[in-house]
């Protein structure tokens, strides 16, 4: 390996290093994904910016409208921090073993953009917004737009992920999360699902759902949202909405972890179950 590897100690140094970086520059955070890629040769590192020491990108703080999470906040920290609540805490807790949670980061989940990432469905369903920084300035975009394809994202080579703003839970908003893997701990998802919804006066007034491991990337489920918007969420409506989402919004594949058929059936049942929880 003849990679050029730099480990900046400050955010400014990191941004300076990224100025003029090319598309094959890699940002290394906790390494739970990239170190495996390097070892098995799937990714050949040429220019690596190791951001792990950038404490400016760590930490959780309350902010107007929600909670701001530094990109390097680990899953273990998300699980522990009292400001991190409900579905995000649950997802962080179920990401993997303790040893993985001590290293795997929020920014890494977004940046790697694996279809099986456990935090990303939550960030999508909650309309979380990612903040990107470069020497030229900063910009923000919804997490659901940041992830653009299979392990692909909208980050420019000169940018890094600075933080994510997770909106506070609205009055009467209900949220649910479920991950299904081969075993309860330390497994990659067969299907992972997050939902946020509001019901006012017997009708669904807001609904956002996102699923992982059922397409080439984490996906929102627009058919589900359209089918239930403004409607009374009775059993028949929920069943038909779940069916249309499974038909139109996902494209699962057969792989070592599961089959396309199982994933569709599983997603259908999880949707019905979680919708019952949040729309009750």
């Amino acid at each position, binding site marked *: *390996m003849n*990679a050029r*590897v730099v*480990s900046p100690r400050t955010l400014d140094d990191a941004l300076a290093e990224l100025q003029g970086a090319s598309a094959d520059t890699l940002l*290394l955070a*906790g*390494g*739970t994904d990239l*170190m*495996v890629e*390097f*070892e*098995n040769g799937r990714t050949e*590192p040429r220019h*690596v910016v*190791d951001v*792990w*020491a950038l404490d400016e990108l760590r930490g959780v703080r309350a902010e107007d409208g929600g909670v701001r999470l530094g990109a390097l906040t680990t899953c*273990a920290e998300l699980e522990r921090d009292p400001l991190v609540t409900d579905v995000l805490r649950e997802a962080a807790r179920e990401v*993997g*073993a*303790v*040893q*993985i949670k*001590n*290293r795997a980061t929020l920014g890494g989940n977004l940046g790697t953009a694996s279809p099986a990432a456990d935090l990303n469905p939550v960030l999508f369903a909650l309309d979380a917004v990612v903040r990107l920084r470069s020497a030229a300035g900063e910009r923000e975009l919804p997490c659901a737009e940041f992830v653009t394809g299979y392990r692909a994202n909208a980050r420019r080579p000169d940018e890094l992920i600075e933080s994510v703003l997770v909106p506070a839970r609205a009055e009467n908003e209900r949220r649910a999360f479920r991950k299904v893997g081969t075993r*309860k*701990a*330390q497994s990659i998802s067969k299907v992972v699902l997050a939902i946020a919804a509001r019901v006012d006066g017997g009708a669904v007034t807001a609904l956002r759902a996102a699923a992982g491991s059922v397409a080439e990337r984490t996906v929102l489920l627009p058919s589900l949202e359209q089918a239930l918007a403004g409607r009374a969420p009775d059993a028949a409506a929920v069943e038909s909405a779940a069916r249309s989402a499974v038909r139109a919004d996902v494209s699962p594949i057969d792989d070592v972890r599961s089959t396309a058929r199982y994933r569709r059936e599983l997603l259908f049942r999880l949707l019905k179950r979680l919708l019952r929880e949040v729309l009750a």
Partner: protein
Amino acid sequence: MKLRFTVNGAEREVDVAPLARLLDVLRDELRLTGTKEGCGEGECGACTVLVDGEAVMSCLVAGCQAAGRDVVTIEGAGHEAVQQAFLEEGGAQCGICTSGMIVATRAFLEEREREGKPATVEAAREALAGNLCRCTGYGKVIAAVLAAGGETR
């Protein structure tokens, strides 16, 4: 790169590739071969060490990320009560997973103590969920964790 860090309480300096795995730095450069490689992809926990007191998979830590950090391996001090419990409860067979299990157990018990929570069966199972044993089940391992927890409290 010149990697300077603390290993088992001693300052060390080694010349390594920045992306060399901490696992290889420990085993090949420092000859600390008590840390084992199982899967090499963060699934099995055999290579568990402590970095700044936290349990991590050393196969997933780049050498450059260990700079200035405090690393404790199975060869380090402080595991004695846990080791004794694994011995007495028979919490090991072939031994490949055992160093990782012991280090992970120590991190777990220290965390429980900090938080003033007891080491329950459920918590112990969760804490060791990332440490796989291919010889047998986990009954005696969990018994050893609980016994060690009793001793250290």
